[in-house]
């Protein structure tokens, strides 16, 4: 019972989020030069009130294994066909193993989608944020977060995205997605996020 209704909630939240993105982006595509400046706030707003990131933790309160997989897939399927100009940067988030910065095949897939979109969009810059869980001190974790961001940057560059359109920053353990209360949450915090940059 609960499961079914919460899935509906997730889908609903999702549709609203995508709706926001689509309207935001379609407006922008009308404007030309000035749009580059405005693009960032639209995505920023989405990032500050993130409907998508809130969903996965809710799901995982229930049986953990099946939950994480469907959520991003649903997003990826929904976003591109709805509007070719829109991309769900939150859904493209990359996950990493403990003390590791190598890209999984899933991460590479996400980066290929991002690279395809960036090449098609022909403008706009993204910033890659590297994050870690809270194990170890932040000085080391800042270095690890930077490596995670650089892994994604190098891969994007290899796919032909101009390096001038990519910037990186590491926040180490300073901006966790979810509280570092247990291993499942820590694992979610070992990630790269993509945000629009000016």
């Amino acid at each position: 019972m609960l499961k079914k209704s919460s899935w509906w909630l997730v889908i609903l939240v999702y549709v609203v989020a995508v709706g926001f993105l689509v309207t935001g982006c379609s407006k922008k595509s009308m404007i030309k030069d000035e749009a580059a400046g405005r693009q960032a706030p639209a995505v920023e707003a989405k990032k500050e009130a993130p409907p998508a990131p809130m969903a996965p933790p809710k799901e995982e309160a229930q049986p953990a294994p099946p939950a994480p997989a469907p959520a991003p897939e649903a997003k990826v399927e929904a976003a591109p066909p709805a509007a070719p100009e829109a991309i769900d940067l939150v859904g493209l988030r990359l996950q990493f193993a403990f003390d590791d910065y190598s890209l999984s095949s899933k991460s590479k897939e996400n980066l290929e989608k991002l690279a395809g979109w960036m090449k098609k969009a022909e403008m706009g810059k993204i910033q890659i944020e590297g994050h870690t869980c809270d194990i170890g001190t932040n000085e080391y974790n800042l270095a690890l977060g930077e490596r995670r961001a650089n892994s994604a940057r190098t891969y994007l560059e290899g796919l032909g995205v101009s390096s001038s359109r990519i910037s990186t920053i590491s926040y180490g353990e300073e901006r966790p997605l979810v509280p570092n209360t247990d291993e499942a949450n820590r694992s979610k915090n070992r990630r790269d996020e993509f945000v629009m940059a000016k």
Partner: protein
Amino acid sequence: MKKNYLILLVLLLAPFLLSQILWAKIYIDIRSPSFRKFPIALSPFKALTPPSQDMKLGERGREILREDLDISGFFSLLTPETSPEKTGGIPSPPGEGTAPESPDFQPWANLGAEALVTGVITYQDGSLTLEARLYDVVKKELIVGKRYIGEMTDLSRMVHRFADEIIFALTGEQGFFQTKIIFVSTAAGNKELFLMDWDGRNVTQLTHHKSIILSPRVSPDGTKVVFTSYKMGNPDLFIKDLRTGEERRISSYPGLNMSPAWSPDGKRLALTLSKDGNPEIYTMNPDGSGLVRLTHNPAIDVSPTWSPDGQKIAFVSSRGGNPQIYFMEANGQNVQRLTFEGNYNTHPSWSPRGDRIAFDATLGGGRNICTIRPDGSDLRVLSANLGKCEMPSWSPDGRNLIFSSDRDGQPHIFLMDAEGTRIKKLTFQRGSDSYSYWIPRAREPK
């Protein structure tokens, strides 16, 4: 001729040398292997206040002194509720104002005390006075006596000053009771720098960057702090004068600018930069000039800390597969691995005595504070059952460590001795406290 001069010189110097020896009588040889705790009695402090203002000044004053002397680890403390002297515990009439010239030592000797501290606190017309004396009970004589005058809020600082006098008079070493701790706290929302006395009293906020601040390290002369801030977007290094409050950005290379460490002479900073594509250790002048790269390794190299003689730098590197502690010459030569036990060993801090390096590690069933000798021997896990313990920093005398622990939920700053036995919580405010760094010398920032 030469011989005669030499004899003359010795004769001339003799009285000075002799007086030096007599003056520096050591009651407690804290370096001796047969060191035993020195029995010292704290007589109840007398408080001479107008009758309407009984603020338990006497009890508060003696309790602060008791905590100080207890933390030092040098003493067995005798703190009777009432003085064993016949006239003890009864304040002298306000007109007389001072402690009796000489206490009756016999009852204190009977308790086993070898030294005695008396104190009289007077609060009148907004002015607080502490008169404190340290006596040799065996010889029945005054060792040191001081009078401090200030405001009501100065009580703890007055007591700390006299505690330092006691430590110096009995051991010949400098105490740390007037030192301060700098740390990062979210008490005001964002991660900002805060300053407090070593015992957690008198907390003040130092920065208002409204961003993320990390890794504060204070210069050996206590006047400047270097730290990382995201104020301008990127993690850059800033220097702040603790007296004037003036602040400047000193390192803003692309990528990370972080984990600064002052050389013991205060002339160089070791730090981590990732401008060359990968986090490496560098040194530079405190104004950002004269950059020299020390490490050349594709792995992560961060968190340098200098040996007290300035000859070596310990740091964290992942070159062996996971983060471990390494050290090298201060010019970057001769890198050697120090730790082989423990996983995720980070945040090394070299003791000011030079004999041990503290760090945090996943070892002993959790995140714990550990110490090891600089030759890699005698690894000790100090904290246990204290939650996640990280970021150790040594006391100026190298006998205690401060660190952050989430034992009570949010991380707060704790103090423990170098054996991990006596543990004291120092911060109690809202939010999380981390990156505590014990400032080497007492300086009053303005």
